[in-house]
């Protein structure tokens, strides 16, 4: 059959098939390219998280010497020290601890990004968590002359999840509350109902505008004003907290109005049997 004998309809069809074939071939090529790119990205991401893990190790090693010598000096191992020197040592220690916190935050976030943050699911007691948070942060609240209240409902059920990570979340929220509140109180409440724990941290601080609330849980974002710049921080704490709560299948949010203080709250299932993967 020669070309001249083809009907226009046949030609039209052949052209359509040819076009489709071109598109299909192009799709296969694009698909290959995407697969290739995503493999490259995966490798790059693994390299990045390995680099951050090594980096964190390298940063923690000298920090061990700095904090270790500081504590030994403050404990008088190298002899009695004048009061003024003791004051300087305290500042040295608190700055060293702050630096450690920043290193830990960056490491945590890099692990989350690389999908390497794994919850360690075991039994925990919310009473114990509240107690840890109280003993860790009550001195900071006392330094600022803030009232510090911890209200845990009676007869809390035993929890199952990553108690250490949930402690980290609560310490982060309470630490923020103390940091941004200059007068008044910080109140922690814990209760359980309908198979979930409910935790909240209320403060009498400056409050947060609606626009800033939207940005709070994103990486490297802080409510952008002079106060937050003065108070410091990486802006990673809430982003990390959000991921930890979500990995437990829970929710975290803020309720606040400028001038009315803030309340950060989260809920997690009492029993978490499996880590929830990010969507």
């Amino acid at each position, binding site marked *: 059959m020669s070309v001249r004998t083809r009907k226009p309809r046949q030609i039209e069809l052949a052209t359509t098939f040819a076009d489709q074939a071109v598109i299909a071939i192009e799709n296969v090529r694009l698909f290959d390219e995407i697969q290739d790119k995503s493999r490259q990205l995966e490798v790059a991401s693994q390299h990045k998280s390995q680099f951050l893990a090594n980096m964190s*190790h390298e940063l923690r090693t000298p920090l061990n010497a700095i904090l270790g010598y500081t504590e030994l000096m403050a404990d008088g191992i190298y002899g009695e020290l004048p009061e003024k020197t003791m004051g300087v040592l305290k500042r040295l220690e608190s700055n060293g601890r702050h630096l450690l916190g920043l290193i830990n935050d960056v*490491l945590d976030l890099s692990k989350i990004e690389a999908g390497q943050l*794994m919850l360690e699911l075991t039994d925990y007691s919310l009473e114990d968590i509240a107690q840890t948070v109280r003993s860790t942060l009550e001195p900071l609240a006392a330094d600022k002359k803030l009232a510090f209240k911890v209200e845990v409902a009676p007869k809390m059920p035993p929890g199952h999840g990553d108690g250490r990570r949930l402690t980290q979340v609560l310490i982060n929220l309470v630490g923020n509350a103390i940091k941004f509140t200059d007068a008044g109180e910080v109140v922690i409440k814990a209760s359980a109902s309908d198979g979930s724990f409910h935790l909240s941290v209320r403060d009498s601080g400056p409050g947060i505008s609606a626009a800033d609330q939207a940005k709070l849980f994103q990486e490297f974002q802080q409510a952008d004003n002079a106060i937050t710049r003065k108070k410091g921080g990486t802006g990673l704490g809430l982003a990390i907290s959000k991921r930890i709560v979500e990995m437990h299948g829970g929710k975290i949010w803020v309720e606040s109005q400028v001038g009315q203080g803030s309340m950060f709250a989260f809920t997690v299932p009492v029993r978490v049997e499996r880590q929830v993967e990010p969507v």
Partner: protein
Amino acid sequence: MSNRILVVEDQEDNRQIIRDTLPATDYEIMEAESGEQALEAVAKQRPDLILMDIQLPGIDGYEATRRIKADPALRSIPIFAVTSYALSGEEQKARAAGCDEYVAKPYSPRQLLAKIRQYLS
């Protein structure tokens, strides 16, 4: 009677901190800077407790711990993993290798001493 502690650590500053942490009246300190040296020291002069850094030149702290714990004559010596690897799962790795305690760097010398005393009272 003073207890003998083997400090396995490749960093001079960290060895110095442990020397300054452990009162000389209560503890006699032996030192090793690599996994191989640690195994040699353990075989020659059986310590009462081992502080084991994990990242070491040559065989690492986990491997050294496994070999010590595989020897029935040495198995009962408590070994503390002392490491600045902060990845999750590190503690399980240390326990799986046979470490009795896990101490993350940076550690508080005061708290480390308290932990050692629990084992050597």
